[in-house]
């Protein structure tokens, strides 16, 4: 069981594993792997705590009800699975500022937090706007040969590469 405590597996082994996992999700659950709808549902659940029934009347939440479903549980599982993997390899560690960020922008947690918050907000709007994220479009949609997903993933990377290059090569 040595491989369970390894820090890193080959990206091809991991990709192969995710590919096999997608067979299982289609066969046993009739579902494709995806992560971003769960955030809409959670956001709706939080909004409902403050606004009650008015939240459920919003057109968007009529489409994506603020409730726990298969994908929501999948996202909880991702957290647990990553924790298990990191814990087994001794990599679990509380960290505010990633190494590469610290090398370029310094190791102040506040700066990293604010930027991550802004990035997360924009990404949240974009994921729902495009109807999926790097899992739902990037892996599940492309493997189904969906035109929308190939187009989406190309746009994800155009936007992502341009933004990262701007931050690291121009602004820094």
């Amino acid at each position, binding site marked *: 069981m040595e491989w369970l405590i390894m820090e890193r597996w080959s990206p091809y082994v991991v990709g192969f594993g995710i590919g096999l996992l997608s067979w299982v999700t289609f066969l046993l659950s009739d579902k494709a792997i995806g992560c971003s709808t769960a955030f809409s549902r959670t956001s709706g659940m939080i909004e409902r705590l403050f606004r009650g029934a008015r939240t459920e009347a919003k057109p968007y939440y009529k489409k994506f009800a603020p409730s726990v479903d298969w994908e929501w549980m999948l996202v909880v599982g991702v957290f647990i699975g990553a924790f298990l993997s990191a814990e087994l390899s001794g990599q679990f560690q509380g960290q505010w500022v990633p190494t590469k960020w610290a090398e370029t922008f310094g190791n102040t947690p506040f700066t990293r937090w604010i930027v991550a918050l802004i990035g997360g907000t924009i990404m949240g709007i974009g994921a729902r706007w495009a*109807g999926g994220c790097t899992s739902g479009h990037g892996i599940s949609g492309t493997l189904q040969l969906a035109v929308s997903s190939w187009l989406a993933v190309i746009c994800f990377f155009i936007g992502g590469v341009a933004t990262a290059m701007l931050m690291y090569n121009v602004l820094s």
Partner: protein
Amino acid sequence: MLKTLHERQGMQLLFGLLMGIVFGFLLQKGGATQYDIIIGQLLLTDFTVVKIMLSAVVVGKIGVHLFRGLGMAQLHPKSGSIGSTVIGGLIFGVGFGILGYCPGTMVGAVGQGSLDALFGGIVGMLIGAGIFSEMYPKLERNILNKGYFGELTWPQLLKKNHWAVIIPVAIGIAALLFVIDRFAS
């Protein structure tokens, strides 16, 4: 038999959790839950993320289409439009670049202890999803359906058998991975 399994809701929630655990475990083992690796991909200095995604797509599409041919699985392609897919995709990309995690890898990053992913990424993404739900009625009327093309797949668009698309794309991806491995890392 599979159909009755799909309808068992409690069981499906458990399946979702178990499949998520496998997914998160794989992402962490691959390094895809680390900011340094993801931002390295966007700066085109580390191709781990693309290698994971493309190999998953090749393996996934062969199996899923085989099972579909055997009547054991159904496809669920997402519908798309220029207004939603392209504009939304570019907005997503900007956020992805600023944050340095995508939604799934961000949750995995929290599992390995990344606090920026928890207090920045997750909180931000929930705010963003909330903002979108406010904007949705207006966006739907004015932008999201512009250039609508629906649940179109490449085989439908090209009027070809799906294997006539799957096999060349798989070969193309394999060639691309070979080139990346040879020259970019």
